[in-house]
């Protein structure tokens, strides 16, 4: 893989990381979008779509409300796609899922560090903010954005380095059944996350009835397709 592609992956991961909270929240941070585009960059759309769907299912279990702490699945999906592509086995996406989940956990913890650093900056400039100093306001805002750019780039680069390391230490040479079983069980867990998360969003009453109707429709679509 060329250095250019790697650089593009880092840039894409940084944009995806920024989109989650800072700017512009247009949902390129959704795993399906992040993974599909990473797959296109790597010339491996199949891996991009598969990991995109798997992490989208995990994402359904997250409601990003208020000051809640949650894993960050956007850059994690990009790392998982890269790992799957580099390992080269058709079922390597299970290992990609495992690495992606670790990266998601790590990325979520960096969000906490970022918010704490932003809070410290706000506290330091409290007097200026209370006097209506527009320059201080703009400086704090821009610094928060710069911190998030750094954070997202760091998370993506670290994740991609870990993916490269997996390939370098010879994980690609593991028996085929290791790939198959990890993919099957990881996929099962993703499906469970999707079911639990969507049921929580749907709630009870009329929502649950619509969900049941949709479930029946989905089963019919399975027969037809």
């Amino acid at each position: 893989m060329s250095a250019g592609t790697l650089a593009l992956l880092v840039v894409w991961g940084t944009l995806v990381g920024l989109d989650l909270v800072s700017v512009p929240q247009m949902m390129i941070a959704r795993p399906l979008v992040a993974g599909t585009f990473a797959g296109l960059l790597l010339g491996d759309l199949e891996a991009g779509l598969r990991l995109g769907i798997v992490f989208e299912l995990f994402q359904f279990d997250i409601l990003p409300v208020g000051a809640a702490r949650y894993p960050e699945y956007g850059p994690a999906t990009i790392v998982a796609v890269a790992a799957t592509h580099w390992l080269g086995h058709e079922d390597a996406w299970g290992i990609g899922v495992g690495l992606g989940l670790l990266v998601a956990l790590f990325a979520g913890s960096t969000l906490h560090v970022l918010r704490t650093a932003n809070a410290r900056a706000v506290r330091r400039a409290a007097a200026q903010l209370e006097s209506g100093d527009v320059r201080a306001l703009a400086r704090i805002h821009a610094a928060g954005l710069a911190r998030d750019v750094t954070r997202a780039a760091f998370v993506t680069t670290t994740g991609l380095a870990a993916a490269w390391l997996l390939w370098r230490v010879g994980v690609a040479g593991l028996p085929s059944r290791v790939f198959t079983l990890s993919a099957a069980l990881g996929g099962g867990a993703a499906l469970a996350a999707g079911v639990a998360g969507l049921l929580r969003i749907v709630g009870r009453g009329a929502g649950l009835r619509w969900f049941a109707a949709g479930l029946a429709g989905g089963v019919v679509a399975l027969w037809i397709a």
Partner: protein
Amino acid sequence: MDRVNAPSPAAPLRASFLRLFTVQASWNYDRLLGVGMGVAEEPLLRGLKRDGTDGAAYRAAVARGARFFNAHPYLCGLAVGATARAEYDGAPPDEVERLRTALCGPLGALGDRLVWAGWLPLLSTAAVAAVALGARWWAAAVFLLVYNAGHVALRWWALHAGWAAGTGVASALRHPVLQRPLALVGPAMAFVAGVCLPLAARWLVRPFPLAVAAGSAVVAAVAVVLLRWLPGRVRSLWLGMGAVALGLVGGWLWR
């Protein structure tokens, strides 16, 4: 404060609208969205510099605008527009503060229901179902286009509605632009989510031999039970890592 004539709104509203896309860039545990709100509101407040107090009213309004605030990011414009308008209308500072405080809860709850638990899962489950039925990269592209048509329109409407309403912003919350989609998006999302899950399940297990697919189904069933009956104590991320680890060990031992 005396009433000050509000400026011609087009240019400041455009600037404020663009800044609203960065409203969470300085999100922090002290003021949450407050600093971003102040940054977004500032262009609308520049007309206060002309009130004859040597910019004191402007600076005081900027300071109020940057205090603690929390709401759904797409609906923050409603509060930005309403509080800026209230400043021009001569509302006393404590009334502006009360307006900001009063808007936090409703804007948060409304945005969560309309976007995080409605529009977003509706379209993302539809995109997942489309890929499971054979769609390629364009499923993600269509998702982005349609989602953002609604997203940008909501942000634009919110800012303009807030600016038009000022302290009477409560009427904007009852506007059909919000209430009609709210009534429709929940059932639509629930239906599409139901359609999506069996399609995604088959798509995920299709490449595997029957015995392995059965193992995947067992893991899924056990994990759903744990996630539904032990919420908060069991997290899907840890279950996922456990399942992959089990697969790695099981695959290694499996002869």
